[in-house]
């Protein structure tokens, strides 16, 4: 296999991920980055590769977060089983929502996903087990597989990173497979794909379910890290944030969402101390600038730059 840019990028990612906490970067911050990076990558699968803008992805992130939290706290499952439960639920939810939403395209598709996510949000608000506004608190960090103590930040960090890498590789494999090619074809020219005999709806649905499942994985993992799940995870602002991360990092690129997620999480982290309400203004500015002048996102622009240089 030729050593492509992607391979190099992946190696760099692994190196950074493995070394970062050892050089003293605060592990919990890094774990947050990886969870959101996974979420953004999952979202990018749907938006960047299948060309479907969903405005309700927080539904999957939040649902998995709650289910995993409940499974670990109340049913006493070990973390890996809890995460599995959360992810499974998000997958099923993805199937249901996807089947309903796929019938429509473009803006209508986005609106259906938003409506469904809102319905789910209000459901979470009502049900007792979510704790409503208080959230699902105090989810214990027990032993992974009954052996590895996740109370230790370092242990937990490498588990989270491993989960991220797994999700990332899964997405990468999907994109660079016949399935991924068909998705691309559908995005570029749907009528043509149909005329070639592909069952377009089935492909879209599969992409949707995969995206939902991995978003769920991200949400469930996040619950284990922070030991709580709350309404923020299911709110439409969260759906907006993941769009921002993907757009900023670079839609349709492999590493874009990762970069976008890291930037957004870092900004929020740094700015929350200093500038309070300006966080929102700055996020908005980034959105606007990205849309007007920076549509390829950080990674997209870097790739374009690299291509220009190599000419």
């Amino acid at each position, binding site marked *: 296999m030729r050593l492509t840019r992607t391979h190099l990028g992946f190696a760099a990612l692994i190196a950074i991920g493995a070394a970062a906490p050892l050089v003293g*970067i605060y592990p919990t911050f890094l774990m947050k980055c990886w969870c959101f990076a996974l979420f953004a990558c999952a979202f990018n699968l749907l938006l960047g590769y299948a060309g479907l803008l969903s405005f309700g992805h927080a539904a999957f992130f939040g649902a998995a977060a709650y289910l995993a939290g409940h499974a670990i706290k109340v049913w006493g499952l070990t973390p890996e089983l809890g995460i599995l439960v959360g992810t499974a639920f998000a997958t099923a939810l993805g199937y249901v929502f996807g089947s309903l939403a796929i019938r429509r395209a473009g803006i209508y598709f986005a609106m259906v996903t938003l409506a469904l996510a809102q319905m789910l949000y209000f459901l979470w608000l009502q049900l007792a087990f979510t704790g409503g*506004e208080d959230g699902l608190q105090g989810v214990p960090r027990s032993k992974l597989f009954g052996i590895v103590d996740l109370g230790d930040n370092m242990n937990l960090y490498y588990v989270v990173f491993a989960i991220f890498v797994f999700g990332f590789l899964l997405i990468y494999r999907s994109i660079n497979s016949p399935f991924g090619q068909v998705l691309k074809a559908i995005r570029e020219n749907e009528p043509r794909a149909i005329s070639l005999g592909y069952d377009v709806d089935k492909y879209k649905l599969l992409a949707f379910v995969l995206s939902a499942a991995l978003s769920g994985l991200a949400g469930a993992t996040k619950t284990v890290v922070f030991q*709580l799940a709350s309404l923020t995870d299911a709110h439409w602002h969260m759906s907006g944030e993941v769009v921002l991360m993907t757009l900023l990092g670079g839609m349709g690129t492999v590493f874009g969402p990762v970069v976008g997620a890291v930037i957004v999480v870092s900004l929020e982290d740094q700015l929350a101390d200093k500038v309070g309400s300006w966080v929102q203004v700055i996020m908005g500015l980034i959105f606007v600038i990205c849309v007007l002048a920076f549509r390829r996102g950080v990674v997209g622009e870097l790739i374009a730059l690299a291509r220009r240089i190599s000419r």
Partner: protein
Amino acid sequence: MKRNIVSAAVVAALIGSYAGVSTAASAPKVSDGVVKIGVLTDLSGTYSDLAGNGSVIAARMAVEDFQKQAKSPFKIEIVSADHQNKGDLASNKAREWFERDGVDMITDLVTTSTALAVMPVAKEKNRITMVSGAASTLITGKNCTDTNVHYTYDTYALAVGTGKAVVKQGGDTWFFLTADYAFGHSLEKDTGDVVIANGGKVLGSVRHPFPGTDFSSFLLKAQASGAKVIGLANAGTDTTNSIKQAAEFGITPKQTLAGLLMFITDVNTLGLKTAQGMYLTEGFYWDLNDETRAWSKRFFERHKKMPTMVHAGIYSSTMHYLQAVLAAGTDDTKVVMAKMKSTPVNDFFAKNARIRDDGRLVHDFYLLQVKKPEESKYPWDYYHVRQTIPANDAVVPIAKSECPLVKK
């Protein structure tokens, strides 16, 4: 990626210095030689007026006054952050502060979900939390920890205060307008229990979505019930909107509104014309006596608004904490907690008040009624003090407590 390496180097340096100090064999009197207090509050959202920047100012005032009075042998530092009323942001920040920045005590924690998220983290890291902003009785009930103090107010005090007192004043039939989430439900239940226990009747209730914008239909239901008192089991803009709209529909002044969680900043927003006659319970009022007035005027100079009970509570609790550290000679959590619980609080905020085993500070509350516009003689002159609710009546009785730390 370059950014990560630079920031990594900076943080590594910080970690290195912190690690070096704390592994020293003979520890200094206080950890790192600095007592660090973190004010974790809502700086920009729904509760930024009743807590927010005012809380940071109150904490700073306490530190400055303490340093003047006691000529403290240790350095004191204050850090602050905006949790945006989100439990996950709060717990993340608390973790960072405890693990990375050497913060010894976190205060304010307005919004119940942030308090409930941070308390277990503090327990795990063996640091102190002093909650001034949040309301739920879970904080000293099922979720109590032995490193926590719940200083200023809780839903029980509000319920007992307003509920009992209003019934005794003749308001014996109630109808509730409740925000449909855990906080609203518990406020409705606590107050309803108190009303019934005092010979009143609850004619019904209606739950509105949280947050709501238009309450006209719910208020009409309340009106149709004919209850003498409409209890508002909600907070923030829900409360102020309900009040405005009740006035619009001619529901007040025929029926009385009881704001179960209201602050002086809400009355300021509404204006006396709209809010007049309303009953509410607070743990502090700036205009109570000369002592409170003196402190509040100093606060006003810095914040440009009169203090809410949260602000006053933060000043008092921070001062109490610092005095305990001085008296104990260390900032070790267990020792300081014991000192704080064994020393009574005696200042403008509370007289002869004690912290119980479950962490609750037992102090007086005040039943207040909003003045009519013509009765107000100067800015922020908003309340009649109708009753002082004795401290022991304003807390969950020990026998009913669900906190495992409490010996019954």
